């Protein structure tokens, strides 16, 4: 089984999730736990740094979909940053970039939260 890991960091009022490895139906529960924890702590502004994400399945995409909705309902958002080209293509085919925000680097994504405030 390929590796998967989620790490949480705080960047001021924004939380950053580093998601690494393979995100598929078997590893999504771990990501869901991380999001649930953020919601419990009322941290709705999230940047997911996907620089080390190697693969994402439809189940993984579904998790982002569901939680972006929750975050936006609470005046927050999930912004994506540092995607590898292959992974970006998967998001792109599905039309995610037209609905959600994608950034080349984490800093831009985090700063974007500041602007909208």
């Amino acid at each position, binding site marked *: 089984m390929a590796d998967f890991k989620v790490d949480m960091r705080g960047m001021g009022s924004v939380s950053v999730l580093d998601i690494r490895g393979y995100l598929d139906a078997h590893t999504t529960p771990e990501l869901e736990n991380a999001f649930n924890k953020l919601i419990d702590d009322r941290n709705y502004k999230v940047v997911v740094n996907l620089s080390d994400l190697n693969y994402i*399945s*439809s*189940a993984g995409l*579904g998790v982002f979909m569901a939680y972006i909705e929750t975050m936006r309902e609470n005046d927050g958002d999930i912004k994506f940053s540092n995607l590898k080209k292959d992974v970006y293509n998967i998001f792109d085919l*599905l*039309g*995610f970039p037209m*609905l959600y925000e994608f950034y080349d680097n984490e800093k831009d994504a985090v700063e974007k939260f500041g602007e909208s405030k």
Partner: protein
Amino acid sequence: MTLIINRILHASTKRKLENAVLFSILIFIYKIFFPATDNLFVLLLGEIFILITLYLWAVYVVEFIRNKTSAILSVIVTSGIFTAIVIFIVKTAYMLFSYPYSFTTKVESNFFESLFNAFLMLVLIVAIAYIFQTIKTLFFLRQKRNPSFYFNLMVLFFIFTALAGSVEYINNDIQFLVDILEGISISLILMNSFRVAWIAFLTKKQKISLLGLSIIMIVLFAVGTSVSFLYNFPLPALTMILRLVMIYGIIYYSVIFFTTLFHIPTAAAIDRKTEELSSFMDLNSLINQVFDINELSDTVTKMTRNVCNCEAAWLATSFNEEDTIQSVNSIGYLQAENITSNLRQKDLLSHDINTFNLKTLSNEEQQGFESVVVAPLKMHGKINGYLFAARENDMFFDDEDKKSISAFADYAALALENAKLIQESIEKERLEKELDVAREIQRKILPKSIPKVNYLDIASLFIPAFEVGGDYYDFFELDNENIGFIIADVSGKSIQAAFIMAEVKGIFKSLSGVTNTPKELFIKANEILKESLDRKSFVTATYGILNIKTGKFSFCRAGHSPIMHYTNNQIIKYIPQGIGLGIEKSDRFASIIKEMEIQLNYNDILILFTDGINESQNKSLEEYGYNRLEKVIKENKEGDMNTLAKKIIESVSLFSKDSSQHDDITLVLFKWKFNNKSIGDN
């Protein structure tokens, strides 16, 4: 004669009783006819008969006692009763007849006396047989070896002494011989009195009973001995045997008394060990029989409480430092939870067994308990929970307690692991069944046949993944000029994906009849799906309408893989703008999705597929990608579409031969065979 001996030696229990009764009757009659005599021969013959009868009774009685060795104390009580009867009956005989017998005076008895004497003799025989066999049984209890040489020697000397006593009855001169034989017999009795290992196996309660019982027995035997000395019946051999057995009784029961006395201080510890052992045996069989975690936990806490002699025990399972109380014994659920969470908060739950004095806690936290021991349930180095035992007094749990609680905790850990594995396999079976249902749904949803259309070569190929992946494709014959087709991939897997697939099929089938363009169809489909799908699910799809008269092809892509078009020796990938169905809940879907229209030329090929193809992986986790697919298409463009489909699948499976297929693979191919020019030529 040999017949008789055989009958005696190889008798069944019933036969043994028959033999004993038969000889008893014979000797009874004999003794009535020859009550007392001066004739040595008559006397000795009678004595030998008596000894044989005694032997026969002993042989019968031993079977009787052997069946009751589990209730050994009751056997002892019975032999005490026999002793009391002997004393009583001999005393009565003395009072009735005031025997004037001595070794020197022989009396011609009257008939009534003879009858009573014969009866007395029978009672003595049975009683002696029982008393002696009781001692013998005790002596060999828990011994693995056969009756020893010294024991048999002792019995032999008993017989010698008895016979010598008989001779002495008539001829007083050999008294010295009787004394010598009696002395030897008593020495042998002493040698045969020190086997009392069985006492150790009694419970404390039984030992205390035995202590009292042995005092009573010693007194009874002492009286019995005095009786055998005081009165000289016309039954010299039996009197002699009685005396020796009584002496044996005194000595052996004295040994029992002192041994028991010394065993009593350790009795509780031995009781506990025995309890522990039987608990482990019970647990062992439970582990293999019971898969219900709660039932197992209940048994473990109950046994812990019994063995450790404490007021309460409980068991908690732990996951990520969160403790769940599984079972409580003699303590309230909330109390147990309180103490557990207290210890957890103070970080006192560790990898090793620990004892704590709860006095450091506040009264409220203490919950009435003072001393507690905690043992971790470890499996493969991971802690799955804790076993607790608590006392209301401040008596600390000693090493012995800790050892057994540790052992129980180990068993509990093993049992829990076992139960967990079983549950997992049940769960696995359930998933298997679900998958079967999902596959069945998928099989029924996919089209049974492909439409036959002039100038159009259509091929489709579907390979399901082990966990049904949610791929779906279909064809709709819209009217004489147009056929519609869909290729879709539902997010998620298994039964959940299968249900969405079924829904999607219904939606597309009905919408294809009432909408005119792919765009219109998708907008309506999205309206329906964004309501019905749960937040995490979505569907990607490509829907196209092909005019089979003109070769005009219009299509929309809702987040699906690119549409490939082979034309003019090149492959074009169309990715018109669009998002997956069910993702966006607002109206933006309609403004985002774009429709494309292309014109097919003679021998053009349309290639539609799901990501199961391009995301197929090889062992080093490389993806099959689009380039390999394009290469196969170019190499096989000339042939029919079925052949091309097979070639593509061959290529994909060759690429990913060392790894398993994660997702469904679907491929739909169209080749436009209508030569516009040739029509024009016509």
